[in-house]
């Protein structure tokens, strides 16, 4: 399978050194080659699977339950300001 390690790294927001690039390119290539073996199987007439569990229609009722997660999260956030998380200024949307 074709891929560009620079593009993969960019999408994952990773700054890779050149020796890391080489190593990861090899590892990722090996993983993709392994997955490629599946292509040998004849899947004609087999419905694509999107989930491995043989289960469907799991719902919750539309009920509100309070949570104190924010207090804990704000406490452990690298930066916070009162009730808000604080992040570096972002100029434009990705």
């Amino acid at each position, binding site marked *: 399978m074709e891929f560009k390690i620079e593009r993969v790294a960019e999408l994952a927001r990773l700054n890779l050194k050149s020796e890391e690039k080489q190593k990861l390119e090899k590892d990722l290539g090996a993983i993709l080659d392994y997955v490629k073996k599946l292509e040998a199987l004849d899947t004609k007439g087999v419905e694509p699977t*999107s*989930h491995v569990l043989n289960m469907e*229609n799991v*719902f919750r*009722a*539309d*009920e509100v339950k309070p949570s104190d997660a*924010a207090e804990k*999260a704000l406490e452990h956030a690298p930066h916070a300001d009162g009730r808000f998380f604080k992040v570096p200024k972002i100029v434009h949307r990705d």
Partner: protein
Amino acid sequence: MNYEPVIGLEVHVQLKTWSKLFCSCSTEFGAEGNSHTCPVCLGWPGSLPVLNEAALKLGIRVGLALNCKVAERLKFDRKNYFYPDLPKAYQISQFDMPVNGKGELLIETKTADGKMIERKIGITRAHLEEDAGKLLHEGITDGSLVDYNRGGIPLLEIVSEPDLRSPQEAYDYLTALKAILQYVEVSDCDMEKGSLRCDANVSVRPVGQEKFGTKVEIKNLNSFKMVQKAIQYEIERQTEAIEGGETIVQETRLWDDGKGTTFSMRSKEEAHDYRYFPEPDLVPFTLSLELVKSIEATLPELPMARAKRFIKEFGIPEYDAYVLVQEKKLAEYFEACVREGAGAKTASNWIQTELLAMLNAKNIAIEDCPVASKEFAGLLKLVEAGTVSGKTAKDVLQEMAATGKAADVIVKEKGLTQVSDTGLIEKAVEKAIAANPVAVAEFKAGKQKALGALVGAIMKETQGKANPKIVNEILQKKLQG
């Protein structure tokens, strides 16, 4: 060369649920920062989303109202991108198996020469997804603040086909869509609170060319009027650019309402790569025919059908009917007035002018109207019977709103009954003619306008209570005689 625009709209509507799409946090607007968050919507490792059944049913409701093909099987997918308003670094959305497939929306629109026409606008799909959080920049120089209360709120993204051909059509499409969403009671559609949002895709092409031009996406559109203005601006900008030999680049532009222009967000050279893949934390869903049928059975009469019924049943003009049905409560008010015995045309005219003007002046919605439909019909019946003049009736309406009294009570108390007594009016006419020789001479010299001064004098004499129709008849007769 002549160019034509090709427009498609993406509307995000917030579905009216108590809790979020995949967790039990409240969807209430305006709460304290981050108070409606939990491990699921903050994206904590190990937390698992579970679909809100009510949100799915509301989504299907919209799909049915838009004549969409509702899916038999649906799933959710991850849309991956990094942005601080997205705690998980992906948004749970739907990619290739949306809840609603192709549909259509009939709209009533005005052509450039003012003709009312019906147009069928294709709906590509309408899928469920979670909202992102909100970034706050105001007053902060060294960063941005994030509030995740909105993160995870259920949205339905309604994507139109590129079937719209003018800013006016785009506006009329949005108005029609909003009316449907309100009729089926899935959202409060409040653009100020962000529960209805719209992005526009705009391109232009030479008339006659089949292939689409390069499209530009416009964001930051906070009202339907802004959508209309931004599209108009963008059509002109693109046409000028092409005629000047430039190539349009596919990009996202933001609308600057103050300047009345769009500007580029300077997106990175490489296109987005959202790397959609099936959301492993959610199982797929199968919708039974019974479920879809049971939702369909609860759909109310939709605006277009109601307008057609009003035209047929009440004989009101097409345009009036479409204005009345845009707001469900207004349509109901009108129909109630007619059922109470008011004439349909009178009711339609008075609701669209006097009643709406009064409500606008007081800044209240029709559902909070201080004059109930039954009382309003009572006033209209007095007008139609000639008991009060139209002018007096406007004052009576204000009085009704202020005191809550019925129209006939006010008319009786204040002695506002219109004078239709020809003898009395005749006297007033004679007096006016005698007192205004100049106006009489002017009228006789062919100046129709001079009649106004005479009518004014008669009305003054009768304290505005004379029946204008009878005044006119007598006046004409006396002047010609």
